[in-house]
């Protein structure tokens, strides 16, 4: 049953019934070249007419967006990592200061533009009871705003915490991978705006190859922690349609280290529910079988 439910490993669009679907497209977000300009955040809002997300100073470095939400479909994370070990420049003797500067790797400021992963096995899509969420011909995952009734189920179902309900509107919103633009042969707004090609849009299989090469290059240059995230079709969601090159553990950027789509365990869940249901029926029978009192 799992295999049935998690169909379409290689070609989700075809599995979803698109007979002559174009090749699967996606994003490769290379965080090693992100400059944190947030052009992606703004371009997304401009194109998709997403409302602003409030004016709150969060104190989390230059991130005042906080995370992906119904009103932020791109989110640029900023992580300040002081050089180790910290030397107090005020009290330390000059040579200790110099020695520390020599010995420790530089202070790092990681930046990463997060987005919906357009999972091969999308928890949000699987659980949506109205069919508002659907798999497009491009193998992306999109909410139909005229169908969604705001049941909210997709929200806890997403293993990445992406999709969210918009306050005052009631419906669920997230990145559409600019479905309307793709239909017109354009690239998504965020990728188009990104000045450094941190966000690369294209055919997923090609992006995966490109990303492998990029990791290899970075490793050669001594960036030992560079690795791909979400590029593996054997992972818990069947691989992401939007995957990343990270320079540190996923959780540092607010990403789950080993996400698994709920549907994977669904047969087991129903089995346990069936057992409980049987027990319930049995309990009822027993209750009445005990005589007339």
């Amino acid at each position, binding site marked *: 049953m799992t295999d049935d*439910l998690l169909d379409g490993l290689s070609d989700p669009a075809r599995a979803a019934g698109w007979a002559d679907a174009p090749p699967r497209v996606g994003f490769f977000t290379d965080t090693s070249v992100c400059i944190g300009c947030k052009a992606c955040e703004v371009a997304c809002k401009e194109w998709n007419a997403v409302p602003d997300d409030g004016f709150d100073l969060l104190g*989390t470095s230059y991130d005042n967006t906080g995370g992906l939400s119904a009103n932020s479909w791109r989110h640029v*994370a900023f992580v*300040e*990592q002081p050089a180790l070990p910290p030397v107090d420049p005020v009290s330390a003797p000059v040579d200790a200061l110099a020695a520390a500067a020599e010995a420790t790797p530089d202070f790092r400021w990681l930046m990463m533009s997060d987005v919906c992963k357009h999972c091969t096995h999308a*928890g949000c899509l*699987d*659980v949506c*009871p*109205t*069919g*508002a969420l659907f798999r497009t011909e491009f193998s992306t995952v999109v909410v139909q705003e005229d*169908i*969604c*009734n*705001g*049941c*909210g*189920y997709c*929200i*806890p179902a*997403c*293993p*990445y*915490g992406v999709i*969210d*309900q918009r306050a005052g509107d*009631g*419906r*669920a919103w997230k990145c559409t991978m600019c479905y309307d633009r793709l239909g017109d042969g354009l690239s998504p707004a965020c990728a188009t705006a990104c000045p450094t090609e941190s966000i690369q849009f294209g055919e997923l299989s090609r992006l995966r190859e490109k990303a492998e090469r990029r990791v290899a290059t970075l490793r050669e240059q001594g960036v030992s922690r560079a690795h791909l995230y979400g590029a593996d079709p054997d992972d818990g969601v069947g691989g992401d349609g939007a995957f990343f090159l990270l320079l540190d*553990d996923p*959780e*540092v*950027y*607010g*990403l*789950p*280290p*080993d996400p698994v789509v*709920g*549907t994977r*365990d*669904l047969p*087991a*869940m*129903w089995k346990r*529910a*069936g*057992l*409980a*249901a*049987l027990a*319930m*029926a049995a*309990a*009822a029978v*027993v*209750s*009445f079988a005990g005589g007339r*009192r």
Partner: protein
Amino acid sequence: MVPAADFRSYYGRPVVKPPVWKRDIPAYLFTGGLAAGSALLAAGAQFTGRPALRRTGRVSALGALAASTYFLINDLGRPERFHHMLRVAKPTSPMSTGTWILAGFGATAGPAALAEVAPLLPERGPLGLLRRALPPLGATAGIGAAALAPALATYTAVLLSDTATPSWRAAYPHLPVVFAGSALASGAGAGLIGTPVAQAGPARRMAVCGAALELYGAHQVESQGLLGEPYRQGRAGRLLRAGRALTAAGLAGAVLGRHSRVASALSGASLLAASVLTRFGIFEGGVASAKDPKYTVVPQRERLARRQAAADGS
């Protein structure tokens, strides 16, 4: 100071989104369970000739179902679009499956309850015809409702578990037990309140079975290591502890107060209250687990480490 984001999280922000569901959802869980338990009670009473118990069961099944449906719709961001649920039947969506179960249950529990008005109808005329037709119809419908009741009581456990909410997901083997037990206990509780002691014997026994399952299941849920923690702490912990106390009280009352209508009704009430508390407790526990990135990251890290160890070992 811009906090040094530690190795595990991004400024302590949640990795997964906590559910946006309001209190309607635990209320919906409770009322759904109550409807299921009541329908079973009614069906048993129907078979064993306990009209008062049957009436209580059928009426509370329908009432609870109506409330449950109300809560479900009320929680929607766009309630006027409730019927969009009926556009599709999706096996991957427990909510879709549940909606159809709910619909089927409504289609049976409704006529069953309706049949209870038969004695109030005139004996002659077209209504008299109805008065004679209703009881057999009600009997059939009541059996149908009882058949769907276990599914109605337990699908909600799957609904919660089929999420990325860490403590719900991890509790998937045990949540159905809690929910089945809670449904039985609450149905029995309603039976104890609405039925004279003479006919309430099965409700008492059902209360014992239900309470036992509920207590056992909840214990399992709470003892699952790190992911049981959210059920033991804070609001969820308080709710579940109070629920457990009331279940125990209800259980004792059901057994010891079997000769007193008042004692029976009190124990029924405490079983109902216990069920409410348990549902809210389970709900809150899940929400708490989603809010703290620890519950997402640590188990996933451990899983990765286990996989790595296995890979290294082979």
